[in-house]
């Protein structure tokens, strides 16, 4: 067993164990900590796949940004009975059964893929090593680099594909516009989140305090 295989199994096993721990633990603070390790493990898997930029983005945005948001949410709401909210035994049984069945279906579908779908037996060695550099990723976002060098599965007919400009000219398949749209979308969403989460003391004082409801556990 080579070192690469051992490293993959170590990383994947740790990530899977942490993901299962997120589900199993009843303490919401511990679930946040397990989620941190899961996200870090996923970014390690992405590094392992040669996607350096995506792995770094995963670390920055997910572990550094999203998880901090989640931890803030936990800290602001984890009081008294809400830290550990027990799920009923019947619900546990049903959800575990459904989860195992779902994983069985997915694993069967993965392991019995037909050979026609098995488009590649190994990693894209000649393309992958060069193309997964972040420079090339950015160039393909701008449309400078041809985004799909061997795009025979994207639905473009073969006769149309010859019209695509070669390397050096501007290619029509750039992802800059979707990327910009996603960026502006994120900005709008963050403004909306700030608007939603603001305190509304004045309105509550006018309309009276809502009746506090602490039910369950």
């Amino acid at each position, binding site marked *: *067993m080579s070192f*690469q*295989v051992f490293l*993959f199994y170590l990383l*994947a096993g740790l990530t*899977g164990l942490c993901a*299962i721990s*997120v*589900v199993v633990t009843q303490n*919401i603070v511990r679930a*946040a900590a397990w*989620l941190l390790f899961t*996200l870090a493990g*996923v970014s390690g*898997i*992405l590094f392992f*796949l040669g*996607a350096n*930029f*995506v792995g770094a983005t*995963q670390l920055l*945005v*997910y572990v550094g*940004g*999203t998880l901090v*948001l*989640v931890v803030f949410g936990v800290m*602001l709401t984890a009081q008294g009975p809400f830290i550990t*909210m027990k799920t009923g035994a019947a619900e546990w049984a049903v*959800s575990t059964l459904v*989860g195992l069945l779902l*994983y069985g279906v*997915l694993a069967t579908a*993965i392991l019995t*893929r037909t050979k026609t779908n098995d*488009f*590649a037996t190994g990693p*894209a060695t000649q393309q992958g090593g060069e*193309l*997964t550099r972040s420079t*090339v*990723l950015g160039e*393909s976002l701008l449309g400078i680099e041809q*985004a*799909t*060098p*061997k795009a025979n*599965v994207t639905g473009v007919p073969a006769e149309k594909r010859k019209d695509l400009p070669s390397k050096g000219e501007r290619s029509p398949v750039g*992802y800059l516009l979707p*990327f910009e749209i996603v*960026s502006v*979308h*994120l900005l709008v*969403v*963050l403004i909306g*989140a700030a608007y*939603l*989460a603001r305190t509304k003391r004045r309105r509550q004082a006018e309309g009276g305090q809502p009746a506090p409801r*602490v039910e*369950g556990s």
Partner: protein
Amino acid sequence: MPEEIGLNHYLLLGALLFVCGAVCMASKRNAIGVLMGVELVLNGATVNFVAFAHFNPAFVIEGQVFALFVIVMAAAEAAIALAIVLNFYNNHLTVDVDTAEELKG
């Protein structure tokens, strides 16, 4: 144990993350726990995207670009969902999703 890591290994890991997230969404009573389940599901999708990008030469760029989109969308979704959860907590003093039943018919 196989000597080479194939596409199936990554797909199985992504499926495990997806199923964990789905079970987490279904079984947690804390609203933030449900949110963590969504994060797990999106991470499983990211692993699948990047694995396909690595093993299929036609999608080397596309898989990574869509993985980036998934990450940004997850950040947006987490921000909005947490704002809603905090608002719900301010109004109802609880984060139990079972008590959010005002729209029940």
